[in-house]
């Protein structure tokens, strides 16, 4: 075969001269660069910045009124931090819907240490944690979640109503 060139149409004397060239290179690489810029553009504003870790504040009037040893959430703090959302869903189901299928209306939450609470976001949770922007929002913003609880449950006029 030597330097004879063969393809499916037959044997040819010599290999056809085709200029080796990268066609449209500037468009391809230009496009790639634009693509990469667009992909990483959203990261640019935060580049090199350290986002401060959430600063939760617990100095609401209700908590400050409590004795030091009573300043304990319905469950241990670490547990609450990880599981409060599931607990709120459980509370909601048992308070709103428990009467549907024979179960008695369930509104009392008994913590493992025996303390009893009314299972209510409005009346129990938000009573102590009345500072949504300094407590709830701190972590929710940090992890970029937007729970829609507060559309109904936060009482903006709460202090006014209590003052009466």
């Amino acid at each position, binding site marked *: 075969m030597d330097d004879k060139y063969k393809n499916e149409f037959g044997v040819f004397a010599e290999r056809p001269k085709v200029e080796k060239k990268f066609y449209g290179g500037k468009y391809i690489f230009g496009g790639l660069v634009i693509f990469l810029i667009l992909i990483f553009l959203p990261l640019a504003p935060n580049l090199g910045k350290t986002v401060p870790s959430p600063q939760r504040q617990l100095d609401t009037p209700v908590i400050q009124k409590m004795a030091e040893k009573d300043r304990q959430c319905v469950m241990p703090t670490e547990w609450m931090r990880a599981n409060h959302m599931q607990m709120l869903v*459980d509370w909601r189901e048992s308070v709103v819907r428990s009467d549907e299928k024979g179960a008695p*209306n369930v509104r009392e*939450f008994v*913590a*493992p240490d025996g303390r009893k609470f009314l299972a209510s976001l409005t009346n129990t949770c938000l009573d102590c944690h009345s500072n949504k922007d300094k407590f709830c929002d701190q972590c929710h913003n940090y992890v970029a979640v937007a729970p829609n609880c507060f559309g109904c449950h936060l009482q*903006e*006029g709460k202090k006014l*109503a*209590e003052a009466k």
Partner: protein
Amino acid sequence: MGMDRREFIRISGLAALLGLSGKGAFELLRPGQVEAALGAEPKALSGKRWAMVVNMPKLDEATAQKCIEACHRVHNVPDFNSPNDPKDKLDPEIAHRYEVKWLWTEHYHNAFTEDASTLPEKVQHFAFLLLCNHCDNPPCVRVCPTKATFRRDDGIVNMDMHRCIGCRFCMAGCPFGARSFNWKDPRPYVKGTYPGYPTREIGVVEKCTFCAERLAQGLMPACVEASGGAMIFGDLSDEKSKVRETLKKYFTIRRKVHLGTNPQVYYIV
């Protein structure tokens, strides 16, 4: 390396023992003892069939207004005619269209479809106090695609606002007009929000709940407390209850009985 049958059984037995120890074993043998528990509020009023009797001759217009006010105050029901901020002011016609009502008054011919000719003349001049009838056979529950509205075992037809998608089928299903849709964010129109109760959001349907949250605390419905005896609330299945006594003593009518929903609000006329 293989494993004979004896070895396999030994290992699986040990694994089962391990699995049974610790929290898993507690869960299996004494369920609900390790985790926190949810239970019924001890003071809660319980019944098998809650019902309301409205004593119309005793209920004058001022008392009716007081009942409505009490109800709408403790449930944060918005009044679109009086915004908290004057710049939210609505055209009265629009405000009327947005109206949210749990308890309201209506004259005989708007509340009842039956011929009034056999009833005393005065009946037609009463301002009937209307609310959700908490029907035994509620059409709103039947049409709700998400089961956001449901009938509890004690007869209360309740709403789960978390599940309402705002389709308004229930409003079309309810023959009593007892349901209202939140066309607008109600917060700017709720006067002095009542602390213990949430508001609603735009896009959900709401109605009277027979004060389920107050019954759970051992309290009578807000309207009953404000009515000074003109409204009677109690358990129909309890023979000695005040509602049963009242129903035995007086002639009562109900709204649109011919529709077969079996409404549970009775009117003494």
